[in-house]
Protein backbone atom coordinates (compact mmCIF):
# COMPACT_ATOMS: atom_id res chain seq x y z
CA UNK A 1 0.00 0.00 0.00
CA UNK A 2 2.88 2.30 0.80
CA UNK A 3 6.33 1.74 -0.56
CA UNK A 4 9.19 4.06 0.25
CA UNK A 5 12.41 3.59 -1.66
CA UNK A 6 15.71 5.20 -0.77
CA UNK A 7 14.06 8.38 0.34
CA UNK A 8 16.42 11.26 1.09
CA UNK A 9 15.52 14.80 2.01
CA UNK A 10 18.05 17.55 2.49
CA UNK A 11 17.43 21.08 3.64
CA UNK A 12 20.43 22.89 2.28
CA UNK A 13 23.32 21.07 3.88
CA UNK A 14 21.28 19.39 6.57
CA UNK A 15 20.15 15.89 5.74
CA UNK A 16 16.85 15.36 7.53
CA UNK A 17 16.03 11.97 6.06
CA UNK A 18 18.78 9.74 4.77
CA UNK A 19 18.09 6.80 2.44
CA UNK A 20 14.96 5.56 4.17
CA UNK A 21 13.18 2.53 2.70
CA UNK A 22 10.23 0.58 4.05
CA UNK A 23 6.94 -0.98 3.02
CA UNK A 24 3.54 -0.92 4.65
CA UNK A 25 1.04 -3.59 3.71
CA UNK A 26 -2.65 -2.96 3.27
CA UNK A 27 -4.54 -2.76 6.53
CA UNK A 28 -1.44 -2.54 8.64
CA UNK A 29 -0.60 0.01 11.34
CA UNK A 30 3.00 1.05 11.16
CA UNK A 31 4.55 2.95 14.03
CA UNK A 32 7.13 5.53 13.26
CA UNK A 33 9.29 5.92 16.28
CA UNK A 34 12.17 8.24 16.92
CA UNK A 35 13.39 11.03 19.11
CA UNK A 36 12.44 14.59 18.25
CA UNK A 37 14.20 15.77 15.14
CA UNK A 38 14.81 12.25 13.85
CA UNK A 39 13.08 12.90 10.55
CA UNK A 40 9.61 11.50 11.26
CA UNK A 41 7.72 14.61 10.29
CA UNK A 42 9.86 15.16 7.22
CA UNK A 43 9.24 11.62 6.01
CA UNK A 44 5.50 12.07 6.53
CA UNK A 45 5.51 15.39 4.74
CA UNK A 46 7.17 13.78 1.77
CA UNK A 47 4.66 10.92 1.76
CA UNK A 48 1.72 13.32 1.86
CA UNK A 49 3.11 15.35 -1.02
CA UNK A 50 3.70 18.44 1.08
CA UNK A 51 7.27 18.52 -0.13
CA UNK A 52 9.16 16.53 -2.74
CA UNK A 53 12.05 14.26 -1.74
CA UNK A 54 15.59 15.25 -2.70
CA UNK A 55 16.23 11.69 -3.84
CA UNK A 56 14.32 8.46 -3.98
CA UNK A 57 10.65 7.83 -4.50
CA UNK A 58 7.52 6.69 -2.76
CA UNK A 59 4.35 5.01 -3.92
CA UNK A 60 1.23 5.71 -1.88
CA UNK A 61 -2.00 3.80 -2.55
CA UNK A 62 -0.61 2.71 -5.90
CA UNK A 63 0.39 6.16 -7.13
CA UNK A 64 3.85 7.62 -7.30
CA UNK A 65 3.89 10.78 -5.21
CA UNK A 66 5.98 12.63 -7.74
CA UNK A 67 4.31 11.48 -10.93
CA UNK A 68 0.66 11.41 -9.89
CA UNK A 69 0.56 13.57 -6.77
CA UNK A 70 -3.14 14.43 -7.00
CA UNK A 71 -4.20 10.78 -7.23
CA UNK A 72 -1.98 9.88 -4.29
CA UNK A 73 -3.24 12.81 -2.22
CA UNK A 74 -6.86 11.95 -2.97
CA UNK A 75 -6.28 8.62 -1.25
CA UNK A 76 -4.34 9.96 1.70
CA UNK A 77 -5.60 11.44 4.93
CA UNK A 78 -3.09 13.45 6.87
CA UNK A 79 -3.03 14.80 10.38
CA UNK A 80 -0.02 17.10 10.74
CA UNK A 81 1.73 17.73 14.02
CA UNK A 82 -0.36 20.81 14.69
CA UNK A 83 -3.95 20.21 13.61
CA UNK A 84 -4.51 22.49 10.59
CA UNK A 85 -7.65 24.32 11.72
CA UNK A 86 -9.08 27.66 10.72
CA UNK A 87 -9.90 29.30 14.05
CA UNK A 88 -12.68 31.46 12.58
CA UNK A 89 -14.64 28.56 11.12
CA UNK A 90 -16.92 26.26 13.07
CA UNK A 91 -16.07 22.58 13.18
CA UNK A 92 -18.85 21.78 10.73
CA UNK A 93 -17.87 24.57 8.34
CA UNK A 94 -14.27 23.50 8.53
CA UNK A 95 -15.00 19.85 7.80
CA UNK A 96 -17.37 20.79 4.98
CA UNK A 97 -14.59 22.85 3.43
CA UNK A 98 -12.18 19.92 3.81
CA UNK A 99 -14.74 17.63 2.17
CA UNK A 100 -14.98 20.00 -0.78
CA UNK A 101 -11.26 20.26 -1.40
CA UNK A 102 -10.67 16.54 -1.01
CA UNK A 103 -13.28 15.86 -3.64
CA UNK A 104 -16.10 14.30 -1.62
CA UNK A 105 -19.13 14.40 -3.95
CA UNK A 106 -21.73 16.99 -2.99
CA UNK A 107 -24.40 14.40 -2.20
CA UNK A 108 -22.22 12.55 0.29
CA UNK A 109 -20.68 15.61 1.91
CA UNK A 110 -23.10 16.10 4.74
CA UNK A 111 -23.17 12.43 5.64
CA UNK A 112 -19.38 12.11 5.54
CA UNK A 113 -18.91 15.18 7.73
CA UNK A 114 -21.39 13.79 10.22
CA UNK A 115 -19.84 10.33 10.21
CA UNK A 116 -16.31 11.60 10.71
CA UNK A 117 -17.41 13.92 13.52
CA UNK A 118 -18.99 10.97 15.26
CA UNK A 119 -15.99 8.72 14.73
CA UNK A 120 -13.63 11.32 16.11
CA UNK A 121 -16.14 12.19 18.89
CA UNK A 122 -16.39 15.89 18.13
CA UNK A 123 -20.06 15.93 17.12
CA UNK A 124 -20.98 17.83 20.30
CA UNK A 125 -18.71 20.67 19.17
CA UNK A 126 -20.04 20.85 15.60
CA UNK A 127 -21.09 24.48 15.85
CA UNK A 128 -18.20 25.70 17.98
CA UNK A 129 -15.46 27.75 16.38
CA UNK A 130 -12.27 25.77 15.87
CA UNK A 131 -10.24 28.49 17.58
CA UNK A 132 -12.24 28.10 20.78
CA UNK A 133 -11.67 24.37 21.19
CA UNK A 134 -9.41 22.77 23.76
CA UNK A 135 -6.20 21.12 22.59
CA UNK A 136 -7.75 17.67 22.80
CA UNK A 137 -10.74 18.67 20.70
CA UNK A 138 -8.52 20.40 18.16
CA UNK A 139 -6.50 17.25 17.82
CA UNK A 140 -9.67 15.22 17.28
CA UNK A 141 -11.09 17.65 14.75
CA UNK A 142 -7.78 17.24 12.94
CA UNK A 143 -8.32 13.51 13.05
CA UNK A 144 -11.88 13.91 11.76
CA UNK A 145 -10.42 15.89 8.87
CA UNK A 146 -7.94 13.12 8.11
CA UNK A 147 -10.54 10.35 7.94
CA UNK A 148 -13.19 12.52 6.29
CA UNK A 149 -12.83 11.41 2.69
CA UNK A 150 -12.38 7.78 3.68
CA UNK A 151 -8.81 7.55 2.43
CA UNK A 152 -6.94 4.30 1.81
CA UNK A 153 -3.90 5.62 3.61
CA UNK A 154 -3.82 7.54 6.87
CA UNK A 155 -0.72 9.39 7.93
CA UNK A 156 -0.92 10.65 11.47
CA UNK A 157 1.82 12.76 12.98
CA UNK A 158 1.63 12.30 16.75
CA UNK A 159 -2.12 11.79 16.87
CA UNK A 160 -2.27 11.56 20.66
CA UNK A 161 -0.19 14.63 21.45
CA UNK A 162 -2.01 16.96 23.79
CA UNK A 163 -4.72 14.51 24.77
CA UNK A 164 -5.53 13.44 28.31
CA UNK A 165 -5.07 9.77 29.25
CA UNK A 166 -8.68 8.84 28.61
CA UNK A 167 -8.69 10.51 25.23
CA UNK A 168 -5.39 8.83 24.37
CA UNK A 169 -6.94 5.43 24.96
CA UNK A 170 -10.03 6.37 22.93
CA UNK A 171 -7.91 7.67 20.08
CA UNK A 172 -5.79 4.52 20.06
CA UNK A 173 -8.94 2.42 19.91
CA UNK A 174 -10.18 4.57 17.05
CA UNK A 175 -6.95 4.14 15.13
CA UNK A 176 -6.97 0.39 15.75
CA UNK A 177 -10.53 0.30 14.46
CA UNK A 178 -9.47 2.10 11.31
CA UNK A 179 -6.83 -0.49 10.45
CA UNK A 180 -8.03 -3.16 8.11
CA UNK A 181 -9.91 -0.79 5.84
CA UNK A 182 -7.16 1.78 6.05
CA UNK A 183 -3.42 1.55 6.07
CA UNK A 184 -2.04 3.67 8.85
CA UNK A 185 1.34 5.22 9.54
CA UNK A 186 1.55 6.97 12.85
CA UNK A 187 4.49 8.71 14.37
CA UNK A 188 5.10 9.05 18.04
CA UNK A 189 7.79 9.33 20.59
CA UNK A 190 5.61 7.70 23.21
CA UNK A 191 6.78 4.13 23.40
CA UNK A 192 3.84 2.27 24.94
CA UNK A 193 1.72 3.68 22.16
CA UNK A 194 3.69 1.74 19.59
CA UNK A 195 3.53 -1.59 21.39
CA UNK A 196 -0.20 -1.11 21.97
CA UNK A 197 -1.33 0.01 18.57
CA UNK A 198 1.18 -0.92 15.91
CA UNK A 199 1.83 -4.19 14.17
CA UNK A 200 5.22 -3.08 13.00
CA UNK A 201 7.65 -0.42 14.07
CA UNK A 202 10.17 1.61 12.17
CA UNK A 203 12.73 3.15 14.48
CA UNK A 204 14.37 6.14 12.94
CA UNK A 205 17.24 8.17 14.30
CA UNK A 206 19.11 11.07 12.74
CA UNK A 207 17.27 10.47 9.49
CA UNK A 208 18.23 6.82 9.21
CA UNK A 209 16.19 3.70 9.78
CA UNK A 210 17.82 1.79 12.59
CA UNK A 211 15.29 -1.03 12.90
CA UNK A 212 12.11 -2.34 11.30
CA UNK A 213 10.29 -5.14 13.07
CA UNK A 214 7.30 -6.08 15.18
CA UNK A 215 7.32 -4.66 18.72
CA UNK A 216 7.69 -8.15 20.18
CA UNK A 217 10.58 -9.10 17.94
CA UNK A 218 12.36 -5.89 18.81
CA UNK A 219 11.94 -6.57 22.50
CA UNK A 220 13.09 -10.17 22.08
CA UNK A 221 16.13 -9.04 20.18
CA UNK A 222 17.36 -7.26 23.26
CA UNK A 223 16.82 -10.10 25.67
CA UNK A 224 20.15 -11.81 25.19
CA UNK A 225 20.99 -11.77 28.87
CA UNK A 226 18.46 -12.44 31.55
CA UNK A 227 18.56 -9.82 34.30
CA UNK A 228 16.96 -10.14 37.72
CA UNK A 229 15.97 -7.48 40.15
CA UNK A 230 16.54 -8.48 43.75
CA UNK A 231 15.61 -6.43 46.76
CA UNK A 232 17.02 -7.60 50.08
CA UNK A 233 17.18 -6.42 53.63
CA UNK A 234 20.76 -7.38 54.47
CA UNK A 235 20.94 -5.31 57.60
CA UNK A 236 23.40 -2.91 56.06
CA UNK A 237 25.71 -5.58 54.58
CA UNK A 238 26.68 -5.39 50.90
CA UNK A 239 25.34 -8.36 49.00
CA UNK A 240 27.23 -7.66 45.78
CA UNK A 241 30.07 -10.07 46.52
CA UNK A 242 27.64 -12.77 47.59
CA UNK A 243 25.68 -12.59 44.34
CA UNK A 244 28.82 -12.36 42.24
CA UNK A 245 30.06 -15.61 43.73
CA UNK A 246 26.96 -17.49 42.60
CA UNK A 247 27.43 -19.81 39.63
CA UNK A 248 26.13 -18.38 36.32
CA UNK A 249 26.07 -14.76 37.48
CA UNK A 250 27.83 -12.44 35.08
CA UNK A 251 27.41 -9.07 36.69
CA UNK A 252 25.87 -7.45 39.76
CA UNK A 253 24.98 -3.83 40.27
CA UNK A 254 23.41 -1.93 43.10
CA UNK A 255 20.29 -0.39 41.65
CA UNK A 256 18.69 1.52 44.51
CA UNK A 257 18.96 1.95 48.24
CA UNK A 258 15.99 2.66 50.48
CA UNK A 259 17.26 2.67 54.04
CA UNK A 260 18.16 -0.90 54.88
CA UNK A 261 16.50 -2.16 51.70
CA UNK A 262 18.93 -2.50 48.84
CA UNK A 263 17.99 -3.39 45.28
CA UNK A 264 20.42 -5.19 42.99
CA UNK A 265 20.42 -5.96 39.32
CA UNK A 266 21.85 -9.39 38.77
CA UNK A 267 22.64 -10.45 35.26
CA UNK A 268 22.84 -14.14 34.54
CA UNK A 269 24.28 -16.12 31.66
CA UNK A 270 21.95 -16.49 28.73
CA UNK A 271 19.49 -19.30 29.17
CA UNK A 272 20.35 -19.89 32.81
CA UNK A 273 17.86 -19.12 35.52
CA UNK A 274 19.74 -17.87 38.59
CA UNK A 275 16.67 -17.11 40.72
CA UNK A 276 16.85 -20.30 42.76
CA UNK A 277 20.48 -19.70 43.67
CA UNK A 278 19.84 -16.09 44.56
CA UNK A 279 16.94 -16.97 46.83
CA UNK A 280 18.94 -19.71 48.49
CA UNK A 281 21.93 -17.41 49.07
CA UNK A 282 19.77 -14.73 50.64
CA UNK A 283 17.87 -17.07 52.89
CA UNK A 284 20.96 -18.96 54.12
CA UNK A 285 22.52 -15.69 55.20
CA UNK A 286 19.40 -14.79 57.12
CA UNK A 287 18.57 -11.69 55.09
CA UNK A 288 15.10 -10.70 54.17
CA UNK A 289 14.15 -11.32 50.55
CA UNK A 290 11.61 -8.67 49.62
CA UNK A 291 11.52 -8.87 45.88
CA UNK A 292 12.88 -11.09 43.15
CA UNK A 293 11.73 -10.67 39.60
CA UNK A 294 13.09 -10.93 36.07
CA UNK A 295 13.65 -7.54 34.52
CA UNK A 296 11.78 -7.41 31.27
CA UNK A 297 13.44 -5.50 28.53
CA UNK A 298 10.90 -2.93 27.45
CA UNK A 299 10.56 -1.32 24.08
CA UNK A 300 11.93 1.68 25.85
CA UNK A 301 15.28 -0.05 26.31
CA UNK A 302 15.28 -1.15 22.69
CA UNK A 303 14.54 2.35 21.59
CA UNK A 304 17.20 3.91 23.76
CA UNK A 305 19.82 1.40 22.80
CA UNK A 306 19.12 1.88 19.12
CA UNK A 307 18.97 5.63 19.20
CA UNK A 308 21.84 6.33 21.58
CA UNK A 309 25.49 6.26 20.66
CA UNK A 310 26.73 4.39 23.70
CA UNK A 311 24.10 1.70 23.84
CA UNK A 312 25.54 -0.37 26.67
CA UNK A 313 25.90 2.59 29.01
CA UNK A 314 22.28 3.50 28.71
CA UNK A 315 21.02 -0.02 29.12
CA UNK A 316 22.67 -0.32 32.45
CA UNK A 317 22.40 3.30 33.48
Amino acid at each position, binding site marked *: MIEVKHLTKRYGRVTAVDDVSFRVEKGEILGFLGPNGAGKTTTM*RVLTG*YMPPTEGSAVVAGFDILEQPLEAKRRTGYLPE*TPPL*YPELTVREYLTF*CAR*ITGVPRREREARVKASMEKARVADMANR*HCGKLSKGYKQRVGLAQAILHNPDVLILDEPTAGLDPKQIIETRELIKGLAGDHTVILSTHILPEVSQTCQRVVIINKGRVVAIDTPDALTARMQGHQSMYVQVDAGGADATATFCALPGVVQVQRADVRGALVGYEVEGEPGRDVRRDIAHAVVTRGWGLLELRPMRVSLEDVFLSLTTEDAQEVRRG
Partner: protein
Amino acid sequence: MANTLAIAGKELRSYFASPIAYVVIGLYALLFGYFFLLFLTAFAEQSMRMAAMGMNQPVNVNQMMIRPMLGNMSVIGLFILPMLTMRAYAEEKRSGTFELLLTAPLTDLQIVLGKFLGSLSLYTIMLAVSSLNVLLLFWWGNPEWRQVATSYLGLFFIGASFIALGLFISSLTKNQIVAGIITFAVALILWVISWVGDSAGELGRAIVSGLSVIEHYDDFSKGVVDTKHVVYYLSFIAFGLFLTVKSVDSERWRG
Protein backbone atom coordinates in the same frame (compact mmCIF):
# COMPACT_ATOMS: atom_id res chain seq x y z
CA MET B 1 -12.98 24.88 -10.87
CA ALA B 2 -14.99 23.42 -8.02
CA ASN B 3 -11.85 23.37 -5.91
CA THR B 4 -11.05 26.98 -6.76
CA LEU B 5 -14.55 28.01 -5.76
CA ALA B 6 -14.30 26.00 -2.55
CA ILE B 7 -11.21 27.96 -1.55
CA ALA B 8 -12.69 31.27 -2.68
CA GLY B 9 -15.80 30.52 -0.62
CA LYS B 10 -13.72 29.65 2.42
CA GLU B 11 -11.71 32.86 2.05
CA LEU B 12 -14.85 34.94 1.89
CA ARG B 13 -16.32 33.09 4.85
CA SER B 14 -13.15 33.69 6.84
CA TYR B 15 -13.32 37.40 6.07
CA PHE B 16 -16.86 37.60 7.36
CA ALA B 17 -16.26 35.30 10.33
CA SER B 18 -13.53 37.65 11.51
CA PRO B 19 -13.87 41.42 11.93
CA ILE B 20 -11.77 42.03 8.80
CA ALA B 21 -14.65 42.15 6.33
CA TYR B 22 -16.71 44.50 8.46
CA VAL B 23 -13.80 46.80 9.25
CA VAL B 24 -12.66 47.00 5.64
CA ILE B 25 -16.11 47.44 4.13
CA GLY B 26 -17.10 49.88 6.86
CA LEU B 27 -13.96 51.99 6.53
CA TYR B 28 -14.23 52.06 2.78
CA ALA B 29 -17.88 53.08 2.95
CA LEU B 30 -17.08 55.72 5.56
CA LEU B 31 -14.31 57.28 3.51
CA PHE B 32 -16.39 57.06 0.38
CA GLY B 33 -19.25 58.78 2.15
CA TYR B 34 -16.94 61.49 3.42
CA PHE B 35 -15.55 62.20 -0.04
CA PHE B 36 -19.04 62.03 -1.47
CA LEU B 37 -20.19 64.69 0.95
CA LEU B 38 -17.17 66.92 0.29
CA PHE B 39 -17.49 66.77 -3.45
CA LEU B 40 -21.26 67.06 -3.38
CA THR B 41 -21.10 70.22 -1.26
CA ALA B 42 -18.44 71.71 -3.48
CA PHE B 43 -20.41 70.78 -6.54
CA ALA B 44 -23.64 72.26 -5.19
CA GLU B 45 -21.89 75.49 -4.27
CA GLN B 46 -20.34 75.79 -7.67
CA SER B 47 -23.63 75.08 -9.42
CA MET B 48 -25.29 77.84 -7.46
CA ARG B 49 -22.45 80.24 -8.18
CA MET B 50 -22.70 79.46 -11.88
CA ALA B 51 -26.45 79.97 -11.78
CA ALA B 52 -26.01 83.28 -9.91
CA MET B 53 -23.58 84.38 -12.59
CA GLY B 54 -26.35 83.76 -15.06
CA MET B 55 -24.85 80.79 -16.89
CA ASN B 56 -27.59 78.57 -18.12
CA GLN B 57 -25.36 75.68 -19.06
CA PRO B 58 -25.69 73.14 -16.25
CA VAL B 59 -22.45 72.04 -14.60
CA ASN B 60 -21.36 68.57 -15.65
CA VAL B 61 -21.81 66.32 -12.62
CA ASN B 62 -19.61 63.63 -14.14
CA GLN B 63 -16.65 65.89 -14.76
CA MET B 64 -16.99 68.07 -11.72
CA MET B 65 -17.90 65.54 -9.13
CA ILE B 66 -17.96 61.83 -9.91
CA ARG B 67 -14.65 61.67 -11.71
CA PRO B 68 -12.49 63.36 -9.06
CA MET B 69 -14.32 61.54 -6.31
CA LEU B 70 -13.75 58.08 -7.77
CA GLY B 71 -10.18 59.12 -8.54
CA ASN B 72 -9.72 59.64 -4.81
CA MET B 73 -11.23 56.27 -4.08
CA SER B 74 -8.65 54.58 -6.29
CA VAL B 75 -6.06 55.86 -3.84
CA ILE B 76 -8.09 54.77 -0.83
CA GLY B 77 -8.01 51.26 -2.31
CA LEU B 78 -4.26 51.45 -2.16
CA PHE B 79 -4.43 51.97 1.60
CA ILE B 80 -7.11 49.44 2.37
CA LEU B 81 -6.37 46.51 0.08
CA PRO B 82 -3.06 45.52 1.74
CA MET B 83 -5.12 44.83 4.87
CA LEU B 84 -7.26 42.44 2.87
CA THR B 85 -4.46 40.46 1.36
CA MET B 86 -1.77 40.48 4.04
CA ARG B 87 -3.08 37.51 5.95
CA ALA B 88 -3.99 35.36 2.95
CA TYR B 89 -0.87 33.20 2.91
CA ALA B 90 1.09 34.50 5.87
CA GLU B 91 -1.60 33.40 8.30
CA GLU B 92 -1.99 29.96 6.71
CA LYS B 93 1.73 29.40 6.96
CA ARG B 94 1.91 30.51 10.54
CA SER B 95 -1.02 28.43 11.74
CA GLY B 96 -0.06 25.34 9.76
CA THR B 97 -3.21 25.25 7.65
CA PHE B 98 -1.08 25.70 4.57
CA GLU B 99 -0.07 22.10 5.11
CA LEU B 100 -3.73 21.15 4.76
CA LEU B 101 -4.02 22.91 1.41
CA LEU B 102 -0.72 21.60 0.06
CA THR B 103 -1.51 18.01 0.98
CA ALA B 104 -5.08 18.15 -0.36
CA PRO B 105 -5.62 17.06 -3.95
CA LEU B 106 -5.33 20.63 -5.22
CA THR B 107 -3.02 22.18 -7.77
CA ASP B 108 -1.06 25.27 -6.83
CA LEU B 109 -3.00 27.25 -9.42
CA GLN B 110 -6.32 26.27 -7.83
CA ILE B 111 -5.12 27.48 -4.43
CA VAL B 112 -3.79 30.76 -5.84
CA LEU B 113 -6.85 31.45 -7.99
CA GLY B 114 -9.19 30.56 -5.14
CA LYS B 115 -7.54 33.01 -2.79
CA PHE B 116 -7.50 35.68 -5.47
CA LEU B 117 -11.20 35.23 -6.19
CA GLY B 118 -11.99 35.29 -2.47
CA SER B 119 -10.27 38.64 -1.93
CA LEU B 120 -11.63 40.01 -5.18
CA SER B 121 -15.17 39.12 -4.11
CA LEU B 122 -14.78 41.08 -0.91
CA TYR B 123 -13.41 44.04 -2.85
CA THR B 124 -16.37 43.80 -5.22
CA ILE B 125 -18.67 43.96 -2.22
CA MET B 126 -16.79 47.07 -1.04
CA LEU B 127 -17.33 48.68 -4.43
CA ALA B 128 -20.98 47.66 -4.48
CA VAL B 129 -21.61 49.18 -1.05
CA SER B 130 -19.89 52.41 -2.09
CA SER B 131 -21.87 52.63 -5.32
CA LEU B 132 -25.02 53.27 -3.27
CA ASN B 133 -23.77 56.85 -2.87
CA VAL B 134 -23.44 57.27 -6.60
CA LEU B 135 -26.89 55.78 -7.17
CA LEU B 136 -28.30 58.66 -5.13
CA LEU B 137 -27.01 61.01 -7.78
CA PHE B 138 -29.05 59.20 -10.39
CA TRP B 139 -32.10 59.71 -8.22
CA TRP B 140 -31.80 63.50 -8.14
CA GLY B 141 -29.51 64.24 -11.01
CA ASN B 142 -28.75 63.04 -14.43
CA PRO B 143 -25.19 61.79 -14.64
CA GLU B 144 -23.85 59.94 -17.65
CA TRP B 145 -24.08 56.33 -16.51
CA ARG B 146 -21.53 54.97 -19.00
CA GLN B 147 -18.76 57.06 -17.55
CA VAL B 148 -19.68 55.91 -14.05
CA ALA B 149 -19.62 52.31 -15.23
CA THR B 150 -16.20 52.59 -16.87
CA SER B 151 -14.83 54.35 -13.79
CA TYR B 152 -16.04 51.47 -11.67
CA LEU B 153 -14.50 49.02 -14.13
CA GLY B 154 -11.24 50.93 -13.71
CA LEU B 155 -11.52 50.81 -9.93
CA PHE B 156 -12.18 47.10 -10.17
CA PHE B 157 -9.03 46.61 -12.25
CA ILE B 158 -6.87 48.71 -9.92
CA GLY B 159 -8.14 46.78 -6.93
CA ALA B 160 -7.63 43.43 -8.63
CA SER B 161 -4.05 44.45 -9.44
CA PHE B 162 -3.32 45.47 -5.86
CA ILE B 163 -4.85 42.21 -4.65
CA ALA B 164 -2.68 40.16 -7.00
CA LEU B 165 0.34 42.08 -5.76
CA GLY B 166 -0.65 41.76 -2.12
CA LEU B 167 -1.29 38.04 -2.38
CA PHE B 168 2.10 37.48 -3.94
CA ILE B 169 3.83 39.40 -1.16
CA SER B 170 1.79 37.56 1.47
CA SER B 171 2.95 34.26 -0.04
CA LEU B 172 6.55 35.21 0.62
CA THR B 173 6.35 35.56 4.39
CA LYS B 174 4.92 34.06 7.54
CA ASN B 175 4.37 37.46 9.09
CA GLN B 176 1.21 39.22 8.02
CA ILE B 177 2.31 42.62 9.29
CA VAL B 178 5.42 42.42 7.14
CA ALA B 179 3.28 41.35 4.20
CA GLY B 180 0.92 44.28 4.75
CA ILE B 181 3.63 46.90 5.04
CA ILE B 182 5.59 45.69 2.02
CA THR B 183 2.41 45.49 -0.07
CA PHE B 184 1.51 49.01 0.95
CA ALA B 185 5.00 50.32 0.13
CA VAL B 186 5.15 48.63 -3.26
CA ALA B 187 1.63 49.78 -4.16
CA LEU B 188 2.55 53.29 -3.10
CA ILE B 189 5.65 53.22 -5.28
CA LEU B 190 3.57 52.02 -8.22
CA TRP B 191 1.32 55.00 -7.64
CA VAL B 192 3.83 57.80 -7.03
CA ILE B 193 6.22 56.56 -9.67
CA SER B 194 4.43 58.76 -12.19
CA TRP B 195 5.35 61.86 -10.14
CA VAL B 196 8.94 61.92 -11.37
CA GLY B 197 7.74 64.38 -13.98
CA ASP B 198 9.95 65.91 -16.60
CA SER B 199 13.24 65.29 -14.86
CA ALA B 200 13.17 61.68 -16.07
CA GLY B 201 13.35 62.65 -19.73
CA GLU B 202 10.94 61.61 -22.43
CA LEU B 203 11.75 57.92 -22.46
CA GLY B 204 11.85 57.81 -18.66
CA ARG B 205 8.44 59.42 -18.45
CA ALA B 206 7.02 56.99 -20.94
CA ILE B 207 8.33 54.01 -19.00
CA VAL B 208 7.20 55.42 -15.69
CA SER B 209 3.69 56.24 -16.81
CA GLY B 210 3.53 52.81 -18.40
CA LEU B 211 4.21 51.28 -14.98
CA SER B 212 2.00 53.49 -12.86
CA VAL B 213 -1.11 51.70 -11.73
CA ILE B 214 -3.07 54.92 -11.28
CA GLU B 215 -2.06 56.47 -14.61
CA HIS B 216 -3.81 53.69 -16.50
CA TYR B 217 -6.98 54.47 -14.62
CA ASP B 218 -7.30 57.94 -16.11
CA ASP B 219 -8.91 56.90 -19.38
CA PHE B 220 -11.43 54.71 -17.56
CA SER B 221 -12.48 57.69 -15.48
CA LYS B 222 -13.07 59.67 -18.67
CA GLY B 223 -15.43 56.99 -19.93
CA VAL B 224 -12.94 55.42 -22.31
CA VAL B 225 -12.20 51.70 -22.20
CA ASP B 226 -8.90 51.48 -24.01
CA THR B 227 -7.62 47.96 -24.76
CA LYS B 228 -4.13 49.14 -23.88
CA HIS B 229 -5.13 49.79 -20.29
CA VAL B 230 -7.23 46.65 -20.00
CA VAL B 231 -4.23 44.64 -21.23
CA TYR B 232 -2.02 46.43 -18.71
CA TYR B 233 -4.22 45.51 -15.77
CA LEU B 234 -4.84 41.97 -16.95
CA SER B 235 -1.14 41.34 -17.46
CA PHE B 236 -0.38 42.92 -14.07
CA ILE B 237 -2.84 40.52 -12.45
CA ALA B 238 -1.68 37.51 -14.45
CA PHE B 239 1.95 38.25 -13.60
CA GLY B 240 1.12 38.61 -9.92
CA LEU B 241 -0.75 35.30 -9.90
CA PHE B 242 2.04 33.61 -11.82
CA LEU B 243 4.59 34.78 -9.25
CA THR B 244 2.34 33.57 -6.45
CA VAL B 245 2.05 30.11 -8.01
CA LYS B 246 5.84 29.98 -8.25
CA SER B 247 6.16 31.16 -4.67
CA VAL B 248 3.71 28.50 -3.42
CA ASP B 249 5.59 25.90 -5.40
CA SER B 250 8.90 27.03 -3.96
CA GLU B 251 7.38 26.70 -0.49
CA ARG B 252 7.26 22.96 -1.12
CA TRP B 253 10.91 22.87 -2.07
CA ARG B 254 12.10 25.02 0.74
CA GLY B 255 9.92 23.19 3.23
